């Protein structure tokens, strides 16, 4: 098996991945709706596969440098880190959206860290477990951890990444209680994991379409 470049996922595979992710976040939306008690819409318009530098550049291109992330590690056939990333200024808004309007500012600030962790946990679990289930593979996921910092910090977590690591970057949009909050889901993988993902995706496509890919 040759080492695939980051762009080895073809359009079909990317489409399939996008579909899987959307199924995942809609499951997460269901979980959030149960939690919040109101309608929650989550959508992922596209998925892009970039290297770390590109991912950092894209995140830097956002309005604000300071970011907050919910971080989880996944292990299995594919291994890596999953991050739900928001501008730090939006995190409180997200918490307020999740917790409702009854809490005072101080309460929200106090609850922010844990609420953010749980919310990110729900979304990331939704995505990852859906993908794992759909690919009929097992992924063991760690408990969530809240990180604050800038984009390069998030993509340089120990152990040090390999130069060939790729980032699957998903733009995600939340629509909760008339609040529209956007962020990113980033999945940082090494090349072997990506190759495994490609294989899994092809199997998934064959299974779903009955057509054996080239």
């Amino acid at each position, binding site marked *: 098996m040759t080492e695939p470049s980051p762009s080895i996922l073809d359009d079909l595979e990317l489409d399939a991945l996008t579909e899987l992710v959307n199924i995942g976040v809609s499951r997460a939306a269901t979980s959030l709706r149960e939690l919040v008690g109101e309608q929650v819409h989550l959508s992922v318009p596209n998925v892009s596969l970039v290297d770390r530098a590109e991912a950092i550049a894209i995140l830097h291109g956002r309005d604000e440098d300071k970011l907050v992330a919910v971080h989880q590690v996944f292990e299995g056939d594919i291994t890596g880190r999953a991050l739900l990333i928001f501008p730090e*200024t939006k995190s409180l808004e997200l918490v307020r959206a999740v917790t409702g309007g009854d809490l005072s500012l101080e309460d929200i*600030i106090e609850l922010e860290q844990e*609420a953010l962790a749980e919310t990110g946990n729900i979304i990331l*679990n939704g995505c990852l*477990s859906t993908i794992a*289930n759909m690919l009929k593979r097992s992924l*063991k996921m760690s408990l969530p951890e809240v990180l604050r910092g800038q984009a390069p910090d998030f993509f340089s977590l120990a152990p040090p990444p390999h130069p060939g690591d790729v980032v699957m970057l998903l733009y995600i949009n939340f629509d909760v209680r008339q609040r529209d909050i956007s962020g990113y889901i980033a999945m940082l993988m090494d090349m072997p994991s990506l190759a495994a993902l490609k294989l899994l995706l092809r199997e998934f496509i064959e299974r779903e379409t009955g057509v054996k890919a080239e």
Partner: protein
Amino acid sequence: MDGADDPLWGVIFDAADTGLIVLDGQSRVLAWNAWMTSASGVSAEAAGGHSLVEIFPAADLARLARASAEALESGASSVLTHALHPGLLPLKTRAGLPLVHNVSVRPIGQKPYGRCMVQIADVTASAHRERVLRQRQNARYDAVVNSAPDPILTLDADGLIQTSNPAATEEFGYPPQELIGQPIGLLVRNHKAWDEALGAVTAGEGHLAIELAAHRKDDSLSYVEASAARWLSDSRVFVTVIFRDVNERRTAEEALLRMNETLERRVAERTADRDRMWRLSTDVMFVAQIDGKINAVNPAWSHLLGWTEDTFIGANLSDFVHPEDRKALRQLIKELSQSATPRLVVLRLRTRDGVTRWVEWSAVAADGLLQAVGRDVTAEREAARALKETEEALRQAQKMEAIGQLTGGIAHDFNNLLTGIIGAMDILKRRITAGKYEDTERFMDAAVTSANRAASLTHRLLAFSRRQPLNPTVADANRLVRGMEDMLRRTLGERIQLKVELAAGLWPTLTDAHQLENAILNLVINARDAMTDGGRLTIAVFNDTVDAATAAAETEAEPGDYVVVCVRDTGSGMAPEVVAKIFEPFFTTKPVGQGTGLGLSMIYGFVKQSHGHVRVESEPGQGSAISLYLPRHAGPHAADPPLNLTTPTGAGETVLLVEDDSSVRLLIGEVLRDLGYACIEASDSQTALPMLKSNVRLDLMISDIGLPGMNGRQLADLARQHRPELKILFVTGYAEHATGREGFLERGMGLVTKPFTLDALALKISEIIRTPIG
């Protein structure tokens, strides 16, 4: 897991200081550690085989169930925090207090996961610690904010109010719950500057300090000075706004403003008033610099002088002043610049047509400027001059008329008298020529009588003109009146009763006795004429003292001691307007031809000449009283003059007679020789001088005062140079030089006035010759 059956794991499982639950593939409890038993009160035996939903039926465990399902199905780990799931499980601490906990769910072992572990972490202590910290922090904050007198609000980045202090409730009327969550626009409405400034502060740019009107709950306005500061909490932006109540200051400022406005209005009104007066005034007004350069003139200037206003501005004042008054203008400016006192001055201005206008100025210098108002008095001046001319003309006409009346009257009287004299003389001349000397006495008496009357007439005229030569002597008015009593009684007739009241101890008075007799007689005759139906006439003589107050009330009176001769009648009296005029010459209440109107005027002249005054009291129907106030004489009464019945005669003394009138010279010379004197005659001073210088014996010089060339008085001076002891008797018909004799007559000199009787002349000559000099 290797060694899973080792009993040690069970001990460790129960020893763990955290809640541990193991669920099987159907989410039923496989294991339940001692911590769980302690916290939940549910034993491991009771829990075993049951789902958590069954164990905790009251709890909402949907999310927990899903989490365990995900763990079992796909190996996902989930966390359920107390933040989003407060009191998820009904757990208690050892002390029985609510146990704050987070729950995590993770799969156990490898896929396929037949079991998952639910772990319950006790975060009571950390949650409590956070709360205590927060409360402490809040306590400090609240202590400051809640006791602050100024409203303090905290806004989030969207301008929504997050906190509110009691002062805000006090100030704006909203309780905290009505403010929190509301936009700040509730209080500060439609304020662009505020919105912009707040936006800048929120964005971390600039600062905010604005005075504005905030809306209270009752919609009234509260004036506040707002300041704002941005702060961050975990990178979240907050803005704390402090509103300082400035209503009091604002009220004071508004009051001040209103006062200023009304002041401005009042000033404006007053200025408008002044301006109106400036424009409307017919008086000319100007403001000029100290050097005379005109700053402003009012429109009256153009009306008065004919130039437009432009001509005046910047020009010098002196350009418009009459050349003859420019010096006065310079003087005025000089005086004004040295004193703040306003000056009144008349300066003439020249009009564009070259006409001179008289302008009366009131000018003052202030703040380095001359300010003046001028009134055109040209018309007044012209009117005054015309009036003066008219008055002059009238006076002249009156004088001519008076002279006409006087001369007419006098000519008439004189003609009568002259007729008597000339006629008598003609008869005498014829009789003497014919040698018929009998009966000549009668005609001579007639001529003398007429001549005396003529003398009396001229005397009265002179008295009227106050140029009669008075011959004041110390007189006793009582004796004088007593001497006249018989004569007066005859004059008054039987219908009028005469009463004479003579005060005892009467002071002497210095007066011309003859004139006083004349005056009394005149008054008596007037009184008689006022009592056509008879009545009573009183002549009172008494002492009186006029004090200063009385003197002040009567303009002509001087304070002092007086002898008063009062003539009072019970006649018709006089109206005040008549009284006011009785001393005027020719004024008479009598029909034309019955009086000259000179009587009272003559009396007035005589009394004034004697340094006295006349007081008149009269009312119509109440009679009249006329009092003559004659000054008291300090010395004693004069002794009775010696009775001298024989004409004194000379003893061969030589007399030099200087008289230009040949008739008078002839007459006097004849008299002197008759009286036994030697007489040398001269017609003027030139003729007399050689004789005065010669060694010829001269005992007396009789000289007319009015001589051609050197007059009699000058001749006397020359004569005395040669003959210091020479006695001199002046003769005069016109006593201008002799009225008031002081200084005129020296020792050894005498005066006799024409006309005189021969006896009087003889007496005077004898007297002066016999009186030794010294």
